[in-house]
C-alpha cells in the first residue's frame, strides 16, 4: 500500500486543445484510505482514475506512489489492482485458481497462497465455491470473483474500482456494499472507487471526491457533503432533491431576502459583486403560519403527500424551494406562509462557493 500524490496533474485529450478533461490539481491520497470519486458522466472521474492507474499519461504534472515518480510507468509497472464494471474471470478455471492467479504471477505458492486465497474467499463468502469452475456461476458471483482477484494481493499500492456494482442485481447491491466496507476494515488496503451513484460513493468511502466539469469541487466525509457543501454543485448533486439556493442581497453587513435579515452559518462577508444565494436543504426548511426570527415570507405553491414524507413547493421571492416534511408534522395549506431557515443549517454562497 502506498500514499499517492498528484502534483499539478491535468489532462487534455488530443484534439480538444482548449478543454481540460481534468483541470490541473494537486491532491494526496492517504495510505489505507477508502476514497470515492463521484460525479456525473463526463466530469473527469474516469480520466483521473486512469491517470492513477497509468492507462492515461497526463498532459501535465507528476504522479508519485510513496514519493516514487511513476508518471511514465505503465499500469503493469505500478503495482496496482483493478476491478472493472464487468467481471473479468477465467471461465475454465476454478474459483480458487481465479483468485490465486494474481498471487501465482508474483511467485506465491504452497500454504501461504492457500491461506491468502481462503482469507479473501471467506470475506466474499466464496469459500464453498472454491473448487467450482467459474463458468457455472451467476453474474453476481463472477463479479465477486473479480473483486476477490482485485483484493487478493496484500502488497498492492492501491485497488482501483470502476463502477464495480453495475452488473449486480439491485436487491443484492447492499450486500456487496457491506462486503466492500468490511474488506476495507479487515484488509486495510488503499481503495479508490469511481461511481456516478451517490449511495455507492457515500456508503463506501471515508472521503468522497466530488467532481464536476473536470474539476474537484469538494473532498469530504459523507456528512460534510450533506451538511456543509463547499460548492453549489455538491449541494445540488448530493441529496434528493438537492439543496435549495435562495437568491439574496447583502445589506448593512447581513444577508437579506426581500428585505428580511437572514442569519446563516457563514461568518465572513462575501466578496463584492458576487451573485449571492442562501443554501438550505429541503429537510431543514421549517414552515410556520406566522413570522419570526430568520423567517422569510413564502407562498406555498404545491403540496404533495408522498406517503413517506410531504413535499412542499415554495416560492421565495424570485426563487423556488422545496421543503421536505415528515408525514407526522402538521400539513401546510396553500397560500402565504413563512419559512424559517435555521441559522446553523444554512450558509451563504457567493457565485458557486460557500462563504466561510
Amino acid at each position, binding site marked *: 500500500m502506498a500514499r499517492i500524490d498528484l502534483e499539478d496533474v491535468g489532462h487534455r485529450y488530443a484534439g480538444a486543445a482548449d478543454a481540460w478533461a481534468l483541470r490541473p490539481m494537486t491532491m494526496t491520497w492517504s495510505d489505507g484510505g477508502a476514497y470515492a470519486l463521484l460525479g456525473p458522466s463526463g466530469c473527469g472521474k474516469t480520466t483521473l482514475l486512469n491517470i492513477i492507474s497509468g492507462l492515461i499519461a497526463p498532459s501535465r504534472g507528476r504522479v508519485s506512489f510513496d514519493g516514487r515518480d511513476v508518471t511514465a510507468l505503465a499500469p503493469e509497472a505500478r503495482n496496482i489492482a483493478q476491478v472493472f464494471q464487468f467481471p473479468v474471470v477465467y471461465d475454465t478455471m476454478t474459483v480458487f485458481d481465479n483468485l490465486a492467479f494474481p498471487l501465482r504471477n508474483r511467485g506465491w505458492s504452497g500454504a501461504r497462497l492457500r491461506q491468502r486465497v481462503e482469507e479473501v474467499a471467506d470475506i466474499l463468502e466464496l469459500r464453498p465455491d472454491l473448487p467450482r469452475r467459474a463458468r457455472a456461476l451467476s453474474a453476481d458471483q463472477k463479479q465477486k470473483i473479480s473483486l476477490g482477484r482485485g483484493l487478493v494481493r496484500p502488497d498492492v499500492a492501491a485497488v482501483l474500482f470502476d463502477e464495480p456494482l453495475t452488473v449486480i442485481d439491485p436487491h443484492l447491491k447492499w450486500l456487496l456494499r457491506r462486503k466492500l466496507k468490511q474488506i476495507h476494515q479487515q484488509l486495510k488496503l488503499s481503495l479508490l472507487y469511481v461511481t456516478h451513484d451517490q*449511495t455507492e460513493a457515500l456508503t463506501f468511502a471515508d472521503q468522497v471526491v466530488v467532481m464536476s466539469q473536470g474539476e474537484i469541487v469538494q473532498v469530504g466525509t459523507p456528512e460534510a457533503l*450533506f451538511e456543509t457543501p463547499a460548492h453549489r454543485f455538491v449541494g445540488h448533486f448530493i441529496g434528493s432533491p438537492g439543496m435549495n439556493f435562495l437568491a439574496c442581497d447583502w445589506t448593512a453587513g447581513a444577508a437579506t431576502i426581500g428585505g428580511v435579515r437572514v442569519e446563516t452559518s457563514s461568518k465572513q462577508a462575501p466578496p463584492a459583486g458576487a451573485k449571492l444565494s442562501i443554501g438550505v436543504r429541503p429537510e431543514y426548511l421549517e414552515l410556520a403560519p406566522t413570522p419570526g426570527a430568520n423567517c422569510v415570507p413564502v407562498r406555498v405553491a404545491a403540496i*404533495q403527500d408522498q406517503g*413517506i414524507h410531504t413535499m412542499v413547493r415554495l416560492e421565495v421571492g424570485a426563487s423556488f424551494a422545496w421543503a421536505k416534511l415528515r408525514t407526522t408534522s402538521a400539513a401546510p395549506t396553500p397560500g402565504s406562509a413563512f419559512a424559517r431557515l435555521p441559522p446553523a443549517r444554512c450558509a451563504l454562497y457567493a457565485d458557486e462557493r460557500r462563504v466561510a
Partner: protein
Amino acid sequence: MRLSGIHYRVGSELWLEDIDLSLAKGGINVLLGATLAGKTTLLRIMAGLDRPTAGRLLAGDIDLTGVPVRQRNVAMVYQQFINYPSLTVYENIASPLRVARRNEAEIRTRVTALAETLRLTPFLSRYPAELSGGQQQRTALARALAKDAELLLLDEPLINLDYKLREELRAELAQLFADGRTTVVYATTEPLEALQLGGYTTLLAAGRVLQSGPTMQVFRRPATLAAARAFSDPPLNVIPARVDARNHEAVLPDGVRLPIAPTQASEIVLGIRAHEFSLAGASGLTALSGRVELAEISGSETFIHLARDDARLVALIPGVHDLALNEPCTLYVRPASLYGFDSSGRLLFAPES
C-alpha cells in the same frame, strides 16, 4: 378504458391472468411491479400491439380488442429513448403533427410550446446524437405528447437516466399531466416513483393484479402482505409475532411487547415500513435492538440494515449517520404505525391515517 378478464398466454406460460382494470380518464394510472410482473405485456395489449388470449378491452361501450394500433389514438414511450436520428429535435417533435397534416403555423406553435415545457428550446436545431440521455428522452416524450393522443403509455421512461435527471423529470411529469387532457398509464418498478406521481396505482405481481386504487389509499392500506411488500422500498420489515389477546399486545420472539389493535388471530406477521423507524427514543415508542449490518448513505438519508435474531430490519433515517459495521443499535417505532397480517397474508390492521 376498461380491461376485462384479460389473459395472455405465451406457449405454456400464462403471462397475464384474469386482469380486470379500469383506467381513470384524464388521470395518471401507475402500473407498479417488479421486473417480469407483466407491466410491459399489459401496456402492449392496451396499445393494440398484442392481442390478448382471452378477455376484452373496452373504451366506453366500444370493444377495442383486436383493433390494431394504427387505428387507435395511442402514444407510447419506451425505456430506450427512440428518436429519428436524421431529424432535428424540432422535426422529431413535429413528426406526428406532419403525419396528421397540420399547417405550418399550428406545428410551430405546438412544437414551441412543448419544447418550452420540456426545456428543450435551446436544442431545437440539434440532432438526437448531440443531446444528453435526458434531453433525448425529453424529446421522445415531447413527440408522444405532440400526438395529443387520448391514451399515453409510458414504459419505465426514466429507467435509463441518471438519478438527478430522473428526480427532475419525475417532478415535471406529474405537473405535465395535471391538466387532465390525457389518460396516462405509467409502468414502473419503483414504489417511490408511484408515490411521486400520485394518481392511481395498480400493483402487479406474476401477471396478476394484487390491488388497485388511488395511490395513497393502496400505499396506506395494502389489502395483503404481498401488496404491502410490492409497495415498499426499502423492503417492508416483517417480524413474526404471537398475540397476547388479553392485553392486546404482539409479543416478539425476544419478548418485546407492542400494543396492537384487537385481533382474533393468535399468530400474526407484523409489517413495519422503513421510514417509520427513528434513532431517538421517546415515550410511547418501542425499542428494537440489534447490530448494524450496514449503514447505507443515500445522500439525504441513511438506510440502516439491522440484524436481530427474529428478523433483519431496514430503517430509513433522515440525514447522514455513519454507523460502524456490527455496532449495537436501537431503532424506535410507534406501535400505531404497525401493520398486522394473518397467517394467510390478509391485512388485520393498519395505521390510522
